Each structure stands twice: as structure tokens, then as C-alpha cells.
């Protein structure tokens, strides 16, 4: 181990060297690499979590199943997989606001949110969100949580993967699931955002 901070060029060369050795051993192939990247760039992402949220807003029975066992409820929609084998959905309300983090590494519910944004994995978020969640939301995400709303921060220290069921915004009564899906953001399912009210 050395304390040298590598440049992007040095990292790229190191990675290519490592990749070449893993290819020589048959551990990786460029085709499998491309497929894995394609899956997480285009197929597995927060649009899947948004589908789950929109269904939960529209179907009280589904929402009850989602809160009871998120993993099984998501499977009903064909949503499952790596880093989300055992999921728990936590529901925001008028009195509770939930936020997820992994302070020890970067655990995140891939099957519903895709790969985490860099800020989620950076030291700054992991350092501050358990200590000053209201301040972090206010200063970095422009979201003020009223003092009478309880803030619950879920630190994903085990293999349970938590994520947030945001509140359905006012003004969406009678909306179809397809319309509701478009409103749901990644940040609202992490708990650093809310779903904006519809004018």
C-alpha cells in the first residue's frame, strides 16, 4: 500500500493492466463487462423504484404488502436482484421523514434505485447525515424539514437495504400510475428530496 494519490491517467492504466490480467485468466471478458455496464446504465435504475412508488400510491393493498415485505412486493413487478435481496421500505408521512445512508461503505438498494450517485458514497454525506441530517438536507439539497417532523436516518449497516416511500403530493387525485411514475425522483426515495406538489 502506498499513500500516493493517482491521477486519472494512472488509474486508467492500472485498471487496464488489471483488466488484462483478469481477461487472461478467463475471469472477465469484454463482452461480459459491456453487458454489465449496459444493465446498470440503461436497465436497472430509479425508474424501477418509481414504478413501485406509483403503484403503492395507487393500490392500498399493494402498499400494505410493500411495507410488510418490500422484497416480495417488488418481485410482483419483476423487480429484484443484487444489493436488494432483502429490502425494507420506510414510509414518509406528515410526522416522519426518513433518509438512507451507509456510513461504513456505500450500501444502496440497486434493484430499485440503480447505482448510487457519487455524493452518496463520498465522505461528506456519510460523515454528516447521521449527525446533522436537517442541516445537510437544508444546505445541500434545499429541503427544510419542519421541527415537528421526526427525522429518521437509516444507516444500512447490514445486508438489509432500506429505501423511502415518499408522500404522494397533493393535486394528484385521480392520476393514473403512469402519470404518477413521472413525478417520483431518485432523491425522494433516498430521502434527500420530496415529490413536489403539483400546481
Amino acid at each position, binding site marked *: 500500500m502506498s499513500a500516493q494519490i493517482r491521477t486519472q491517467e494512472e488509474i486508467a492504466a492500472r485498471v487496464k493492466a488489471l483488466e488484462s490480467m483478469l481477461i487472461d485468466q478467463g*475471469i472477465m471478458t469484454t463482452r461480459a463487462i459491456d453487458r*454489465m455496464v449496459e444493465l446498470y446504465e440503461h436497465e436497472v435504475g430509479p425508474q424501477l423504484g418509481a414504478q413501485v412508488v406509483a403503484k403503492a400510491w395507487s393500490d392500498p393493498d399493494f402498499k400494505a404488502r410493500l411495507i410488510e415485505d418490500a422484497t416480495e412486493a417488488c418481485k410482483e413487478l419483476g423487480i429484484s436482484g*443484487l444489493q436488494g*435481496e*432483502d429490502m425494507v421500505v420506510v414510509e414518509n408521512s406528515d410526522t416522519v421523514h426518513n433518509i438512507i445512508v451507509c456510513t461504513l461503505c456505500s450500501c444502496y438498494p440497486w434493484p430499485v434505485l440503480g447505482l448510487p450517485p457519487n455524493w452518496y458514497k463520498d465522505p461528506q454525506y456519510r460523515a454528516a*447525515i*447521521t449527525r446533522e441530517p436537517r442541516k445537510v438536507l437544508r444546505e445541500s439539497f434545499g429541503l427544510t424539514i419542519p421541527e415537528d417532523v421526526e*427525522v429518521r*436516518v437509516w444507516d444500512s449497516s447490514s445486508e438489509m437495504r432500506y429505501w423511502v416511500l415518499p408522500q404522494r403530493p397533493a393535486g394528484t387525485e385521480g392520476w393514473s400510475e403512469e402519470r404518477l411514475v413521472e413525478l417520483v425522483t431518485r432523491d425522494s426515495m433516498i430521502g434527500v428530496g420530496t415529490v413536489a406538489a403539483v400546481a
Partner: protein
Amino acid sequence: MNGVFDLAGTDGVGPVIVPEKEPVFRAEWEKAVFPMFAMCFRAGFYGVDQFRHGIELIDPAVYLKSPYYEHWVHTVEHYGEQLGKLDMAELDRRTEHYLANPDAPLPEHADDPGLLAFIEAVVPAGASAKRESDKVARFKVGDVVRVDRSAPKGHTRRARYIRGAVGEIVLAHGTFIYPDTAGNGLGENPEHVYTVRFTNEELWGAEHAEPNGSVYFDVWDPYIELVTPTATTTEGVSA
């Protein structure tokens, strides 16, 4: 182990910077590193807990300053070297080669339908850490518990900020691989996992805590001891 990766409550690291928009992978090299996690797992380099521990062993200055996916490079190298699957001198030699010739091609190789099939299968199926066990849960929802405050030198998920703290069990999840053995190469030894709620005041002191808030942290059975049993007969949620 006590290390800089255990970041909760660290002050002075600066504000969270949130870019307006960013791609899933910020550089081409990140696209080659991301699949290494699954493919080297398949090749027997590590379990998930060991993978994390390999990252924890990175030089602390490098850990804090290097791009995220470079952490994965370190842990793949760590286990590759340890298992004799990577010749580090050869890795250095090839690194020099690609540094001097960034566009030099990767080695010629054939496709591997088995590897592609593995990717197509494992992405939707996952690899759960849940394990059957006949171990009896020592605790139940509603119990008030204290976290062991000892400081092990190997891998653990018992973060420093919850050590010694008292909280209430709010969820019980069943039995899962125990990272304190699995992450140190000592086997899965499944243990019960619970979610414990700690108030902000308990973790940071009333003077420094934000009002009206708590942290929910998952612990394995050996991490905690009973302070006050629950007064009710509420059964735990079993996921």
C-alpha cells in the same frame, strides 16, 4: 477495525457537493472496474464482507482522496495477490505499458457464454446473505439494548458512533452471514440481525444533537447486550 472509512459523525470534512447531473460512470475506467465486483466474486476472490474489508485496508489518505471505484481496484488487487491469482510485478509491468500506451489493446480473448449467463442470472437473482439457522434470537422487538464498545482489529460492522450506545430494537430480520467472521475469512456463522433505534441525544449528547430525530442501525446478535427487556409481548417483524 477502527479506520477513516467509519465516517459517521466525523466533523470538518466539508459540505455535501451535489452536481446537477452526472453519468452513472464518470470515466471509461470505472466501467471496467464495476463488473470486477461480480466477476471476481464468481472467481472466488472474496465474499462481500471480505470485499468491504479489502477497501477498509486502503491507506487512509488515499481512501479519503481517491475516486470511489478506485477503492474497488485496491480490494480486487488485495485478494488477487493474497490468493496467488495476481502477480503484482506483472501487474506493475502492464501498468507501465498502458501508461505509456493508453490506447494499446487488451489481450485477444474468446467470449465466454457461461460468464454472460452468470451476469444475466445474478443481476436479477442477487445473492442473499440470509441464512437458515436454528440459533435462538436472544432479543426481541421492544428490548432496550447496549452495543458492545470493544474495538476489534479485523472487519466489523459495529461502527464507532454506536459503540456503547443504548437503543431500542424496532425490527428483527432473521439470521444472516456474520460479517465479523465472514469478513475476516472465518466462515459465515449466521447470527440474528436487528434494527436498533438510537436517539440523536444518545449518540451525540443533548447539547450537540439535532432535535426530534433518531438513527436506525442494524446490529448482529453478538453486538448487543440487554439493558431492559420489553414490557410488551410484541413479536418482531420477520422479513
